[in-house]
């Protein structure tokens, strides 16, 4: 396999496709990668371990044989992780159907966006629209910066003249108090900072909504934010020709954050009565959008879901992996994870079988560990980008013996034989 000249980074939902691979040394992190991407590329290049059974190095076939032997008598496996590419997810679902497994993605946060979508709807936009069209950005929290390091560079700090001479963007930050993000903003942007205690964010969104909707609320009652700032923000929102609200669901406070997402969406709906406004719920990291998209198109329902007894049933609470594990309901844990490094939950009720990133380290060796190729690094793959619409192909940057998730799971499925 000849390495590609440019490549696409799989390590956050931005899927930056302007990374350049050093043709002389494919083990070096590609140029243009952010710190987060660099760490991951380098860490993956540094290891080259074989599969393991009970901590002992074995060949791939032996590892798959062992996994199949462990799984064959069991009835209630939980397949977790799911931070994989499309082909990997297809293979996971084939395995889940075979085993009657529960499947759940490691990131629960995107449920917040999904729940708000299912219970209210959404008005959203995509990266290139933001880049060329947005004259006002409301940046909620600091996840856009912390979790998506090149978001500003690639999407916001670009003077697009697509629709005429570029105008200075207006940016409102709704920051947790004490977390200053000003340094991350484009230098020339007009900036308004509404610092807010995280728990008060839904209250602030509500106040802004009521104000843009001309309801007789008293901005002085909104707590910490000065009424004049609120009024300025409302004026900017009304003046915007194309406003965009950006958030990262994982950073919204509290266990009912889907209400905050709905509140933002309601505000956007009101604004669209007169002008154009849209949401940009940044996501896509660790294949969260990918896993849910594949599950949704194949089965018609989302994650988490149970494939037991020849049915598919989705239930965000019952089949959430922490809940399943807490009840002691699962008799095996299969962790499939080729992108991220999230901790594998402790599990004692049966075997733990891990198809994981090659550089994963364990406190306690799982019963079986199969290092798998990371899409976009050791193997080609496809991921859904953070704005949900664009799916990109990620070429491999270097040759590798590691099997892809799809290959490894197909090997396992072949060994499991017909369903019991």
């Amino acid at each position, binding site marked *: 396999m000849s390495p590609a000249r440019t490549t696409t980074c799989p390590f956050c939902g931005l899927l930056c*496709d302007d990374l350049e691979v050093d043709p002389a040394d494919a083990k070096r992190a590609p140029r243009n990668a952010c710190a987060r991407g660099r760490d991951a590329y380098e860490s993956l290049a540094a290891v080259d371990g074989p599969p393991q059974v009970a901590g002992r190095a074995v060949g791939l076939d032996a590892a798959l044989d062992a996994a199949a032997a462990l799984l064959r008598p069991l009835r209630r496996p939980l397949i977790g992780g799911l931070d994989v590419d499309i082909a990997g997810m*297809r293979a996971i679902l084939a395995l889940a159907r075979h085993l009657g497994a529960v499947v759940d993605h490691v990131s629960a946060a995107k449920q917040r966006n999904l729940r708000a979508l299912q219970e209210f709807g959404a008005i*959203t936009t995509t990266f*290139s629209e933001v*880049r060329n*069209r947005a004259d006002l950005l409301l940046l909620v929290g600091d996840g856009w910066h912390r979790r998506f390091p090149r978001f500003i560079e690639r999407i916001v700090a670009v003077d697009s003249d697509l629709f005429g001479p570029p105008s200075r963007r207006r940016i409102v930050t709704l920051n947790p108090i004490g977390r200053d993000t000003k340094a991350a903003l484009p230098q020339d942007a007009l900036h308004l900072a509404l610092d807010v205690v995280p728990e008060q964010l839904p209250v602030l969104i509500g106040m802004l909504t009521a104000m843009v909707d001309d309801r007789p609320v008293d901005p002085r009652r909104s707590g910490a934010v000065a009424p004049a700032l609120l009024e300025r923000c409302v004026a900017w929102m009304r003046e915007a020709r*194309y406003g965009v609200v950006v958030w990262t669901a994982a950073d919204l406070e509290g266990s009912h954050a889907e209400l905050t997402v709905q509140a933002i969406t309601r505000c956007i709906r009101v604004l669209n009565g007169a002008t154009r406004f849209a949401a940009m719920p940044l996501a896509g990291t660790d294949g969260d959008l990918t896993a849910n998209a594949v599950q949704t*198109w194949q089965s*018609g329902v989302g994650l988490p879901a149970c494939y037991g007894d020849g049915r598919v049933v989705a239930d965000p609470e019952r089949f959430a992996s922490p809940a399943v594990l807490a009840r002691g309901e699962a008799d095996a844990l299969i962790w499939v994870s080729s992108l991220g490094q999230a901790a594998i939950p402790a599990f004692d009720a049966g075997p733990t079988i891990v198809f994981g990133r090659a550089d994963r380290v364990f406190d306690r060796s799982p019963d079986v560990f199969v290092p798998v190729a990371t899409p976009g690094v050791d193997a080609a793959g496809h991921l859904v980008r953070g704005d949900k*619409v664009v799916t990109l192909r990620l070429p491999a940057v270097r040759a590798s013996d590691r099997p892809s998730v799809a290959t490894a799971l197909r090997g396992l499925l072949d060994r499991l034989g017909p369903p019991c």
Partner: protein
Amino acid sequence: MLTRLEGVRIIDPAHRAGGAVRDLYFRDRTIVAAPRDDEPVDRTWDCRGMIAMAGAIDLHTHIGGGKVNLARALLPEFAAAAPVPATDRCAPCTAGPAPSALATGYRYAAMGYTACFEPAMLPVNARQAHFEMGDTPIVDKGAYALLGNDDFLLRLLAGGAERQEIADYVGWTLHATQAMAIKVVNAGGISAFKFNQRSLDVDEAHVHYGITPRRVIAALARAVHDLGVPHPLHVHCSNLGVPGNVDSTLATIEAAEGLPIHLTHLQFHSYGSEGDRKFSSAAARVAEVVNASPHVTVDVGQIMFGQTVTCSGDSMMQHRNARHGRPPKWIVMDIECDAGCGVVPFRYRDRDFVNALQWAIGLELFLLVEDPWRIFLTTDHPNGGPFWSYPHLIKLLMDRSFRNDVLARIHPDAAALSNLRSITREYTLDEIATMTRAAPAQILGLTDRGHLGVGAAADIVVYEPHPDPEVMFAAPRHVFKDGVLVAERGEIRAVTRGSLHTVKPDFDRGIERKLEPWFARYQTQSMHSFVIGDDEVCECGHSARLIAHRCVRHG
């Protein structure tokens, strides 16, 4: 392997074989002539008393891509209520208003459909569409790439680009997205909505580019024709769903300047604004023009009463119509300086005046457009209703007394405003076969589909005749896809992978010298990332076969 269907009545309008009884043979995946006497037949199916038709083709059904998946995600309560349990052949899934890809393939095949075409693939979303189609089992697939709201084209037009350059861009798009045809949705309107323009009629200027939908349609119809793409420009007209939109629809026909044009889900575009409620049927007016315009083909987009969900690229109109949606939750998206989408659930009710009249308007179109070679059976699945209501729709077309019984149950004011009761036409079996097989194959350029001639693909459906056409069409006795028995009496017997149909017109690669910097400067992916190669698209479809259709260049 040589297979014989013995003593079957052949309904094959492409060969004017209306009812001859004979043996039909296919070898492996292809229909063959009767073998020599000494040649052994491997398998014979006794089909005496039965009817054979080519596999049915749906040329406009939303089966894959972002908006369909959004629709699935939007309505978990309906999916949960519509489980499709596993069988020894089929995987478990669900079939809510936006059914899963798996259920889509199973149900189409069980109903005798062997090819389905996704009519609204956004170029930037093409990969996902191919993945979803790739996970739709058994049937053949293909997709129409959406143009006409993409900033690259609108800029070309506003800058007075040459006809050649537009054709090159359209040709490049067909290649890059692995598409089968070009569709335009609310020409310029989706883009205009992003500039806060709330409606755009055919001769109204786009607020930023200053060009009109008429210009966009003319340019695209010309480019598609010049490239020799078999399927004419597939047009979703301006002002979908707006009372009085008949004028926009007729202006759109005019905009094609005599070049071939296909008007899709025409029902949603055949509304007058007469009467107390300012909403009336303009089906007769539209049908008259269609009858007189041999370059025009149409599909209907019949609505069916019940819960469904509308998925459309037309964000402008979906935003406008969202307030009528039930349950009251909806999605609108602006997409990548390329397109948009809107997902709005609808519950069509027979006792609702507007819905009842929409139902009647669709049937009026079916019955007033005379040539079954130019009108196709669609519900614009799922927008007007699910594709599995086709057998019911066929019965409405074939059985006047049944039609009148239903007419008697709908909102009386709507029934009174429609001339449906006075229309006596009943479709014949031959006409149904034409509009569901022969004609769509012809208009798509699928030379080896839609008929039962020697050399055609062995996509064959065998029906047991039944006095009730709904029963007959719902669960054919045998369905063969590429020669494999895939369904019997509504049950799936084998899960195969259909092929992907694309076109590969010739164009000047020089257009990439403009496109590459365009992507670099304005898009958030490179041109290189955007293009889907042949190997890649097969990978999307689990190594499905790619069938690229030839284009004979005109311009």
